[in-house]
């Protein structure tokens, strides 16, 4: 099986590679369109700011490549947000795979932003959570989130309910960092590679 991690100007990709090493999965880290298109599985991870990462994707044409992929694609954190329609983070037009807008957490007394730390996800409707206990804890770090919508397949609560995971056709996404979310996060990565 050929797994590709998409190379772009986002941080924290190293942790994803290490996580795949831990589960014994091999991968290619590349931004080459032909390599991406020929992969069995594509992972689109990253930490970053929406407008900077999105303009980089445009400059190298990945903004057209990613939505046209046919194999299972898994976006995490900023990867997930860039797969949505629009982000309030510097008013960024994103790739529009998921027809939902990413919004900043509203200022709420006692709720710090970023939402940072371990929070539980619930209402699973995706094979990616197979084998997980109810209310599994995942590690989140983000200031913007997609509200609960038609594509939500797992939700989380912080100040208000939001999408912890999205799914549409061959596109899967998670707001949290599976790569550092303990055994539960590892299970999600393994499940994605098994689809």
């Amino acid at each position, binding site marked *: 099986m050929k797994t590709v991690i998409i190379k772009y100007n986002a941080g924290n990709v190293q942790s994803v590679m*290490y996580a795949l090493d831990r589960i014994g999965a091999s991968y290619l880290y590349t931004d080459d369109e032909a390599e991406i298109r020929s992969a069995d599985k594509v992972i689109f991870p990253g930490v970053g700011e929406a407008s900077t990462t999105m303009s980089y994707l445009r400059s190298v044409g990945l903004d057209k490549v990613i939505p046209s992929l046919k194999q299972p694609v898994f976006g995490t954190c900023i990867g997930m947000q860039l797969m949505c329609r629009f982000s309030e983070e510097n008013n960024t037009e994103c790739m529009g795979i998921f027809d939902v807008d990413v919004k900043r957490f509203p200022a709420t007394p006692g709720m710090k932003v*970023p939402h940072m730390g371990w929070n539980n996800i619930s209402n699973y409707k995706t094979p990616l959570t197979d084998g997980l206990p109810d209310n599994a804890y995942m590690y989140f770090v983000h200031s913007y989130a997609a509200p609960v919508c038609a594509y939500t397949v797992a939700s989380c609560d912080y100040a208000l309910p939001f999408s912890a995971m999205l799914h549409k056709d061959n596109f899967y996404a998670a707001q949290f960092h599976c790569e550092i979310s303990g055994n539960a996060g590892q299970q999600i990565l393994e499940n994605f590679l098994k689809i």
Partner: protein
Amino acid sequence: MLTKRIIPCLDVKDGRTVKGVNFVNLRDAGDAVELGAMYAAQGADELVYLDITATVDGRSTFIDLVRRVAHTINIPFTVGGGISSIADVSALLHAGADKVSINSAAVRNPDLINELSLEFGSQCIVVAIDTRFVPTENGHEHIVHTHGGRKPTEIRSIPWAKEVEDRGAGEILLTSMDTDGTKNGFALELTATISGNANIPVIASGGAGNMEHFYDVFTAGKADAGLAASIFHFREIDIPDLKEYLKNKDLPIRMTR
């Protein structure tokens, strides 16, 4: 619900942990990777590795250690100690650290906080504040200290905490030098003031001696996370017991077993 985090801190010198000798189950208690992996397996929510090596050779050993930790453990970890430039941070994040903690360098050059958060994102920039309550011209005040808490500065800790947030820090690691090592509990009032003012998470450190101290710092102290070193290393408190205790007192805690 977002949980309160329990964070063991490992001091590392020349790639080995300095404290942490009381673990009979470990082949090598000085092995910082093995010790971290054990804490992760026990349910630690995050780890902090502090490099207390001063030499250049020690620095490259530490980066190698960071790489091995990142490869082995599957929870987030922060690294700190002697970080003073964008290049230092880049090397550590590239090696796989999730966050970096800066202290003396931020005091020396506060613009560094802005530069680092712009370059790498606020989420991975932790500013460590070592503070001590000392006599000043205004009576007694909480004053920032550097160099492992030995060197006083002119900076007041409470406004400094706000300033580091405004400059782009993503988290504050607050260590009270007054309570550190006493095992009499965290500095609750100061932690509550700083955490209550902050819109970023505050990790409380210094003074943990028993399980109740963690309960206190998460309630009266308003802390988002509690950090300790020797009480975990010497097994005075076991992390699974601590998390069970806090859970039973109705705090939001991530249970792993």
